[in-house]
């Protein structure tokens, strides 16, 4: 598993090629690698954007206005749940309880956690991420 986690950290997802290579290296069937990879929700097997947004959808966040925040994100990035923006910057996903129920609603962008979100706040956060990218390009 640490191998898969390392690959995901670098490439953001585990491609079929990586899975076959891992299987070869440690001499186990590729199906077993695939089986393990798909078990864990933080190991993506499809290409994703540079920033993966994981919105908590469990009860407290759902009660405290998760949907409004989600609409704000979808409206801003023009993508639906599970999709990636055409420029490969953002992927929007839902996830189960992140453990921030006392500061709901919460989301993660890659490994960073954001809590007590409001539509305004989430717009600011995403604008921040968009700028990071532009700076990198320059």
């Amino acid at each position, binding site marked *: 598993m640490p191998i898969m986690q390392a690959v995901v950290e670098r490439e953001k997802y585990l491609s079929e090629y990586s899975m076959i290579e891992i299987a070869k290296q440690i001499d186990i069937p590729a199906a077993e690698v695939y089986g393990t990879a798909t*078990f864990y929700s933080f190991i993506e097997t499809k290409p994703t954007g540079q920033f993966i947004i994981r919105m908590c959808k469990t*009860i407290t966040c759902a009660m405290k206005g998760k949907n409004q925040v989600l609409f704000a994100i979808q409206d801003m990035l023009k993508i639906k749940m599970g999709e990636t923006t055409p420029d490969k910057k953002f992927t929007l996903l839902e996830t189960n309880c992140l*453990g921030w*129920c*006392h500061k709901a609603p919460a989301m*993660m962008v890659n490994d960073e956690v954001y809590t007590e979100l409001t539509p305004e706040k989430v717009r600011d956060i995403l604008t921040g991420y968009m700028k990071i990218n532009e700076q990198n390009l320059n």
Partner: protein
Amino acid sequence: MKVMAISHQLKRVDFIFSNENDWEKVLSTTIKKKPADLINELISSELKGRGGAGFPTGLKWKLASEAKSDAKYIICNADEGEPGTFKDREILSKVPYKVLTAMAVCGYITGAKEGFIYLRGEYKFLLTELNKAIDEFQYYCKEIKFDFKISIFMGSGAYICGEETALMESMEGKRGEPRNKPPFPTQHGYKNMPTVINNVETLVHTFTIFKYGAKKFYDLGVQYSRGTKLFSVSGDTPKPGIYELELGMSLQDFVYEFGDGDTKAVQVGGASGFLVPRKKFKDAAIGFKGKLTGISLPTGGSMMLFNSSRSMYNVLDNYLEFFREESCGQCTPCRVGCQQLLLGIKAVKRGEKPAAYLDKLLRLTETMQLTAKCGLGQSVANSFSSIVENFHEEMIY
């Protein structure tokens, strides 16, 4: 309707987050005592596992120390995934040295030389600070010539990996699917070696016990539920957060303190726990089984309050979706059961199935409780039956 308080006796305590600067002293003095004495101390404190299952910690350590093996392991379970629980994160970020010290003492008692912290993927941001703490801890161990190695293993977002045997499978690099029990981890755990696996909070409590003695811990709480517990309070409450409270309190007192005046129900123990409606508040006490009167509710510390604006149907729907996704899929009762429960309540809500269909679903949860392999499948029945029975109308209309 205003919730009337009959008695108001919540007792706040501050053991867990109190200063940890003396961990070096606690460690060096504790490992000079005899392992058997320490185990007796722990047994007499009647500390029970704080992850929710409530297995006596002293007994667990005793079993592991009696097991004969070349290698033994200590695992700190920080795969806190239960909805509404966030205490372990606070412990690891505020008092990590207490956890590390407790792991090392456990290693000393059981004869294990290596410990792991299984940290859930969602808490990766803690990694840097935690590694720093471990480095310093190991440095001190070297200084006093005490041989115990601690490392962190990262999870990758799977609720079921909080189940102890699933966690070990995951650490061995496989799918996190629970094993059959027995054999128990104290005999055949990680890599098939005797393993002590404890929740983060349980370990911190052992630190308190080794520091102050068992009596101080035992004097708190009520019969069968000794000591204190961290509660993660969330939902419709004016003061969400983490509180260390004495065990055995009545839910009525709790709601009086934390409710917003309009509390309709409280979910105790997260999605796998029980929902208690307002009319039962005064009969419910928070603690482990075996209490003398009323309902006693074991809990991992998650307390979610719902006020009268919340639909219990939506709550149940949310839980079931959670379980459906997080069921590992290994055994049929849980895999298919969770799907069918969700489809079932949706169908009743839409009017496609008669209300009597809910009884059928209740029987299904009974079957799951009896036949599912691990705690996940067995405990779906808890929240399902407590919600459906107490809020029957809301499920239908």
